[in-house]
């Protein structure tokens, strides 16, 4: 079945072609047919993925690697690129949850977009196109095909953010996302060029992952750092990290299923995936890893701080996404690639659920407002309240997701977040500062998420007369909510840490991919540490065997691990308790502020109005960018237009045009239409040729 992996991207592509070319006609006949085609294609794709995933599991761990070359793509000189896919634990893990969640969100969209007349088919075309691109990004076995997917998802993101483009604000948000991403894409591209030429100097002209990672030691330290940093800039745009995160909150202008699918669960995590995929490369550059960890931690707390005071339900979720992505990068940066990917997985479940839940809320609010012809903002939490009784399914599923993201023990978010925090503390590249930042951000996350829940679902309804019209959403929307709620609740049990008596299946599964580089060394070292003294010697032996170049360092870690073995087990429990306590504290505060004494937030906002305004206006980052980058750029563009283009280029072009015009009139004299003059021209040419060749003959 492995050889049929190409079916996975092909099915969505077929959906794009059918609905894209004939959608308008199909929609005129039957709207149902549109979503049957779109969802059916994803279902087929998912089925194939499941079968391949199952077969992959049947193989022993060290044989879980397979490449399928489908087509020659570009063959030019030393550049040999193929449309080729790679089947390994990492790619299949991503494919499973991306396509699975994608399928749920396709189903959800049926209910959410049903009333969008005339554009229904277009929405599904874009969604299918997104799935096609995302699958290529994930399954690619080389950087170039990955980049194709990378660009494709960017395009779909743009198209879907501006889906309701008749409102100019949406169109602008789309442009912002696209342009910000271009900055990152450019860096990614340059990084790819450097990698290609860097390895090419040593005769390895390839962008194929397996080739690159086996020859990566040819790169010098500085080359690796440069490439990693450029790749990471690409990630900061795609995965919304400082400084290029600004587009993601605005991207919420798109329909909510889009926010859930693209801007929470899948596309924004592609940066994390890319770094995990390149873990061998990143392991070569401790500096780049440090940058990744630092940026991740800062983003986590920075975005969380903005989330504290936002009133738009989707904006809160957007900042929480940015913050959670920060966690993932923190994990990657300290060398815990598997932990980062684990958080990608659990985050996909609970964040998709949160967005879909918020979508259900907005859908209900919108309908209620529509009924009473009120034009208030259906996304503003200040207009909500008391939805618990009116939309019970939405509420309970939403609550599960909130518990998960807050890191309450037992729910999926707890396991992944806690693992990252522990690695941030204990890994050789971690430090207590990174842990502290992460833990505080976790507390803030619990606070703003429960603030959201309390404002939306508790207390009295603040929507005025629209209140009695608020109803639960259709089954096509609540169905996916329930499935995701189940996953958000239990998804974490895939990776129960050793400290809690689990066997961490998730890590074992990803081991063959993450074990290629230093990541393995660090991982082994820390694992040895938590297991205690007896494993240390074994790990050290393993390490020496794994990479001769890193022996000294790795053995050092192992020895350290052996020394602190028993101690660190205690530390892990202690840190776990502290972070859970912080989360509970956050929830408690939210409870006091938004249920018990609801006058406190306003009083606080007044008292510390400076800070409140700073947070409410998102630290004025947009304004800062406008001042520092956009305005000067616009001024320069104006200069280019009036000064260079009109003044110089047009002048030259007009001048040339005049000369050409004059020339044309001369030529026209020859091009008279008379055969005789044409013959003269032939004779003239003949004479010149004869003269030339006779001169040569002399």
């Amino acid at each position: 079945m492995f050889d049929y992996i190409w079916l996975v991207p092909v099915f969505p592509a077929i959906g794009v072609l059918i609905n894209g070319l004939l959608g308008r006609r199909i929609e005129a006949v039957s709207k149902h047919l549109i979503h049957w085609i779109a969802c059916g294609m994803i279902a087929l794709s998912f089925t194939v993925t499941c079968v391949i995933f199952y077969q992959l599991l049947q193989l022993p761990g060290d044989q879980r690697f397979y490449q399928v070359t489908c087509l020659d793509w570009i063959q030019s000189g030393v550049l040999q690129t193929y449309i080729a896919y790679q089947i390994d634990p990492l790619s299949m893990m991503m494919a499973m949850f991306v396509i699975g969640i994608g399928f749920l969100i396709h189903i959800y969209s049926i209910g959410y977009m049903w009333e969008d007349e005339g554009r229904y088919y277009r929405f599904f075309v874009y969604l299918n196109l997104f799935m096609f691109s995302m699958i290529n990004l994930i399954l690619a076995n080389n950087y170039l095909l990955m980049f194709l997917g990378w660009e494709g998802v960017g395009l779909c993101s743009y198209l879907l953010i501006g889906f309701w483009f008749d409102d100019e604000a949406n169109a602008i948000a789309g442009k912002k996302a696209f342009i910000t991403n271009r900055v990152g894409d450019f860096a990614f591209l340059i990084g790819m060029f450097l990698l290609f030429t860097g390895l090419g100097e040593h005769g390895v002209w390839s962008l194929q992952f397996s080739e690159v990672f086996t020859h990566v030691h040819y790169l010098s330290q500085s080359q690796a750092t440069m490439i990693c940093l450029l790749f990471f800039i690409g990630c900061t745009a795609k995965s919304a990290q400082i400084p290029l995160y600004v587009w993601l909150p605005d991207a919420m202008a798109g329909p909510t299923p889009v926010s859930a699918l693209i801007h929470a669960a899948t596309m924004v995590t592609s940066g994390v995936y890319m770094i995990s995929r390149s873990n061998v490369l990143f392991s070569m550059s401790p500096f780049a890893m440090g940058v990744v960890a630092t940026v991740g931690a800062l983003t986590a707390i920075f975005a969380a701080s903005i989330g504290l005071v936002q009133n738009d339900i989707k904006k809160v979720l957007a900042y929480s996404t940015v913050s959670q992505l920060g966690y993932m990068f923190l994990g990657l940066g300290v060398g815990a690639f598997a932990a980062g990917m684990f958080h990608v997985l659990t985050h996909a479940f609970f964040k998709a659920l949160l967005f879909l839940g918020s979508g259900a809320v907005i859908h209900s609010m919108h309908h209620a407002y529509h009924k009473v012809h009120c034009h208030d903002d259906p996304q503003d939490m200040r207009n909500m309240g008391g939805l618990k009784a009116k939309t019970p399914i939405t509420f309970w599923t939403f609550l599960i997701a909130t518990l998960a993201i807050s890191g309450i023990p037992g729910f999926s978010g707890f396991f992944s977040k806690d693992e990252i925090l522990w690695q941030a503390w204990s890994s050789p590249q971690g430090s207590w500062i990174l842990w502290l930042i992460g833990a505080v951000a976790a507390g803030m996350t619990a606070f703003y998420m429960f603030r959201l829940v309390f404002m939306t679902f508790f207390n009295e309804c603040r929507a005025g007369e629209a209140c009695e019209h608020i109803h639960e959403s259709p089954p096509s929307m609540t169905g996916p909510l329930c499935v995701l709620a189940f996953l958000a609740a239990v998804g974490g049990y895939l990776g129960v840490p050793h400290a809690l008596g689990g066997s961490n299946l998730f890590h074992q599964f990803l081991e063959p991919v993450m074990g290629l580089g230093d990541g393995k060394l660090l991982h082994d070292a820390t694992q040895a540490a938590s297991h205690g003294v007896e494993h240390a010697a074994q790990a050290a032996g393993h390490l020496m065997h794994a990479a001769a170049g890193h022996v000294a360092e790795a053995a050092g870690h192992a020895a350290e691990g052996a020394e602190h073995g028993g101690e660190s087990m205690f530390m892990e429990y202690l840190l776990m308790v502290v972070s859970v306590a912080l989360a509970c504290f956050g929830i408690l505060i939210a409870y006091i502020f938004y249920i018990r004494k609801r006058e406190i937030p306003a009083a606080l906002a007044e008292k510390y109005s400076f800070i409140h305004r700073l947070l409410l206006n998102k630290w004025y980052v947009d304004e800062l960018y406008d001042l520092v980058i956009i305005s000067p750029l616009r001024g320069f563009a104006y200069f280019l237009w009036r000064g260079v283009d009109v003044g110089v280029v047009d002048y030259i072009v007009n001048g040339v045009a005049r000369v050409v015009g004059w020339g044309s009139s001369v030529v026209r004299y020859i091009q008279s239409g008379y055969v005789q003059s044409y013959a003269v021209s032939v004779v003239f040419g003949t004479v010149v040729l004869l003269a030339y060749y006779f001169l040569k003959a002399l």
Partner: protein
Amino acid sequence: MLEFVVPALNLKAILPQLILALTALTVLLVDVFAGKDGKTSLGGLSLIGVVAALVTLFLSRGDFESAYAGMLAVDGFGFFITLIICLVALLSILVAISYEKVCPEIRSGEFYSLLLFAAFGMSFMGSASNLIMIFVALETMSISIYVLAGFKRDNLKSIESALKYFLLGAFASGFLLFGFALIYGAAGTLDIVKLGSFFTAHPDLLHQPLVMGGVALMTVGFGFKIAMFPFHMWTPDVYEGAPSVVTGFMATGVKAAAFAALVRVFFVAFAALQTDWTTIMWIAALLTMTVGNLIAISQTNIKRMLAYSSIAHAGYLLIGFVVGSEIARSAILFYLLGYAFANIGAFAVISAMGSKGEEYNELSDFQGVGFKYPMLGLTMSIFLFSMAGIPPAAGFMGKFFIFSEAIKAGYVWLAIFGVINSVISLYYYLGVIVRMYFKDPEREISIAAPAGTLVAALSLAAFGVLQMGIFPSYVWDLARASAKMLM
């Protein structure tokens, strides 16, 4: 006693061409015996013949031989040219069937059989290995085309076009034949392979006036057919007047065939002279593309515009000729095929732009077409993008191969001029697209809904353009293998 060797009748070597010729004859016969209704089947019949020729072409591929006492070279190069010609004929016939609505005259046996005979001649030009054979093939092709160009008998422009092409063509053929004669006088043979070995064996005889004059005159003759500056003057008038479908056919087929003969004669017979012709062909390439592009800008008739554009393309192809390496010759083959798809496609769209007896060939007629006739607008855009050399179309890859090979061989300036010219050409290619999508129509034009065959032709051409642009490897490998086998 003079020994006379009867050449073996090697039918297999010429099977595709034979099928073309037999189909042409069959079409003529059917036309005579079938009634008025039977005439509608002529196009379909021709189509079957061309497809059969294509199939046999692929089936008989791989034989590498010299047939008919050295008259024909059955080699990869000839294979590729025949492939281009058959595809061109196929697309032209598809377009012609739908063009019957606009121009009823062409619904006749003469039209289709002449078209097939022309293809027959073109194909032999690609594999002829003897100067006399080249001349015969060239005349078979040219005479058919002269008649085809004037096929709209009651249209003055069409007749003018045919007459002009005939007069000047005959004039140029004279030069070509005289060139052949001089070469024969110098070397005593007309066999291209033998000429090659003769001049390698006698380098001292190379630079005598007889040879040099012959080469110069041959350049004139071939230069005329490929529309090289300054022998290009006939192109706009002929392209404009000829029925659109014929224009598409000759803009691609004649150019491919003539280029094939030019490459074979110069690189097989006169390879030893390569250093001598480089300079003059360098200048010719530069002038050809520059003149073509600059004058194309000021055209208001789309057929004239594409005529000048085809001159410019001859210039790009000449860059490949100047470079002359094996890869450059592959690039020429690749470029010719990509150009054929795009150009026939564009003329197919133009031929669709008309109703009975009336054609809309002014650039202003294309205003608003993009939205009114989405299929025509979209495919036309693809073809124009390809001609302009914008990825992901075939034209981009073609230019890429030619220019990159030019740079590798040290012709950096020629490549730079080529790129500058591509930029200039963007202006008029994109101008059409701008008109199609961003301007409102000036006058009401009503055209018939595209017939099935036209849709098939447009789809096939667009598919070819995109296939070669996105996945160039298949055709490129084929072109590489073909150029390697040049006898």
